């Protein structure tokens, strides 16, 4: 058992896998000598050397292309795209090439690769360095999508992503970097496509991801005090999606709330609501409510950013109002 920060867990998880598989390599901007701008790859160059841990030019398309070409010829790769906003710079590589090539070639090519990227807000970096773009990846068939909320999940899901034969976009949350948690000794390997009930409850279900998980938990604790028993689910992996865990919970509680950091439209929560609506409609006791960042670019000023991203208060108030609301009275 070790106490690790989320940031340390990234390097820890990667190192575990690079020790296991001597063919695994990584590349990205400032990941080697500098240990990454978020210090998530510290120590890897020293342990694994410059041939396996490579600094690149600012050429995101070339980075993803290099990873793809290596992966399709038998070398598994971890590519870093420094900020998830920059996925846009290489979106053709990811959405049109990486995601589609297996299907287009009827299975002739495989891409055992992970694209790691720092995602999310709260760091006051402004609109171009703060987005939560898990839905960008989720909407593209052929990609798997993971977003851990805790250090142990970082390690376990990183290992699972690296071992997965498909391309995985792995979102590391900037505002969780300093969060601490225990990680078991020895090899830690998790499974993609498994959500986790992080708090049990009976009155309603809150589905959250990444930074929204601790906030949802805190709101749920306050709801408990108000006599409302909320179940909280950490989705962890958007693709594959553990729909069963969500459906089972919502069927039981009768109410669904999503907490999404993304701007509202076409967020992952919309998809979850539509699945729930389609499959367990008759178990619902009221409308499904999405708590999201408003549909705006993220502002830089601390005061504004904190208003934009769902916080404990907003989650708590929204849920409280909704379960007490006129709908329920009807």
């Amino acid at each position, binding site marked *: 058992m070790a106490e690790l920060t989320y940031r340390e867990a990234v390097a820890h998880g990667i190192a575990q896998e690079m020790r296991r598989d001597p063919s695994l390599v990584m590349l990205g901007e400032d990941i080697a000598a500098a240990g990454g701008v978020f210090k998530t790859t510290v120590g890897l160059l020293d342990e694994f050397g410059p041939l396996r841990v490579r600094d690149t030019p600012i050429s995101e398309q070339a980075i993803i292309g290099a990873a793809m070409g*290596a992966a399709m010829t038998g070398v598994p790769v971890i590519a870093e795209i420094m900020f998830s906003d920059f996925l846009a710079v290489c979106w053709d590589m990811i959405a049109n090439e990486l995601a589609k090539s297996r299907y287009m070639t009827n299975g002739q090519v495989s891409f055992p690769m992970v694209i790691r990227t720092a995602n999310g807000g709260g760091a006051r970096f402004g609109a171009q360095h703060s987005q939560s773009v898990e839905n960008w990846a989720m909407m593209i*068939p052929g990609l798997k999508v993971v977003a851990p909320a805790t250090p142990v999940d970082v390690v376990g899901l990183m290992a699972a992503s690296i071992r997965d034969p498909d391309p995985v976009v792995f979102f590391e949350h900037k505002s969780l970097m300093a969060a601490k948690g225990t990680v078991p000794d020895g090899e830690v390997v998790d499974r993609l496509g498994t959500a986790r009930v992080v708090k049990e409850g009976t009155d309603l279900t809150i589905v959250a991801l990444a930074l929204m998980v601790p906030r949802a938990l805190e709101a749920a604790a306050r709801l408990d005090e108000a006599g409302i028993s909320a179940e909280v689910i950490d989705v962890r992996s958007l693709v594959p999606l553990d729909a069963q865990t969500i459906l089972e919970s919502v069927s039981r509680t009768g109410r669904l709330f999503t907490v999404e950091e993304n701007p509202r439209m076409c967020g992952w929560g919309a998809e979850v609501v539509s699945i729930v609506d389609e499959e367990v409609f008759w178990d619902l006791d009221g409308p499904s409510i999405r708590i999201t960042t408003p549909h705006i670019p993220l502002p830089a000023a601390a005061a504004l950013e904190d208003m934009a991203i769902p916080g404990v208060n907003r989650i708590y108030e929204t849920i409280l109002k909704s379960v007490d609301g006129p709908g329920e009275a009807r």
Partner: protein
Amino acid sequence: MPTDYRYDYSRRDPRLPPPVDRALEHAPIPEDVRLGMYRKLQELRQFGKRAHDLFLQNLVKGTTHLSLGMEAVATGFGAAMRPGDYSFATYRGHAHSLARGVDPGAALAELLGRENGVLGGKGGSMHLTDVAKGMMGSYAIIGAHLCIANGAAWSAQMRGTEQVAVAFFGDGTTNIGAFHEALNMAQVWKLPVVFVCENNLYMEYTPIDLVTAVEHPAAGRAASYGMEPIVVDGNDPDAVYLVATRVLERARRGAGPSLVEAITYRSGGHSRADPGKYRPAAEVEAWAGHDPIPLYHSRLLAVGVPEATLGTIQREVAEVVDAATEFARAGREPGEPSLLTEVFADGGSRWRN
């Protein structure tokens, strides 16, 4: 405002082909290699014509981009590459596929959207791929595959296999960002990769010189990546073969990437039934006089190959292409089950439990 005549591209001055380099008759190329190239040229040409016919018969749906007139580039490189080498092509990838030994029947069946197509009908004309043959894919959005070719080369470098990756692309592709990123990274990492620009003077319907800051869209950029500017007559199989041999060897021994600009010309349109009317008639005509097939036919006669040998090859290829057509036409339409396969490596498309 009346349109300036320069915007009727067919009225511009024609851009003429280079003279045939007679000295290449004496190039040190073994006769079996030359006969192999002649056979391949014939295969690419006859396959291309057949694909065109099938398109006009509405059997090839969607779109198709032929290499008619441009076959010598694929042929020369195909002859110089080794079996383990990697090819990456664009939507205009039929010639490059066949040049690596992809089965013409499976390729044609793919164009027809049949189950026996090389991609089971899922990819179509713009995406021919046959990994077993080193044909690592045809990519239909400009630029990306240069970056992917780097990756295959990087992998070969790491695995120490002496494989080389070759990326083929058009003149128009030199103006997209990915071109720049790929070439820079290739040089910085000294990757065993060769970038081959097939400069057919047109980016779709627009003359390349009107949208490019330098005369040679590829060679004129080589210095930016610490590479030698190489221009070759892309309609002369021997010329292409010699250059290919040199740059492949260079890559194989670890000396790094190369960029080759092969000047060539589409004898037909850009895609589908495009008549190519935006090109000056005199230009089309001049290039018809520099077509690789008669050019190479004359070359082989000049070096002493009997006409009959060439005739036999032509007929043998015709049989191959006929058989391929039969094979393709006999294929079934792909059925429901295959729709949902191979999105993921488990063979399926399940995104939830």
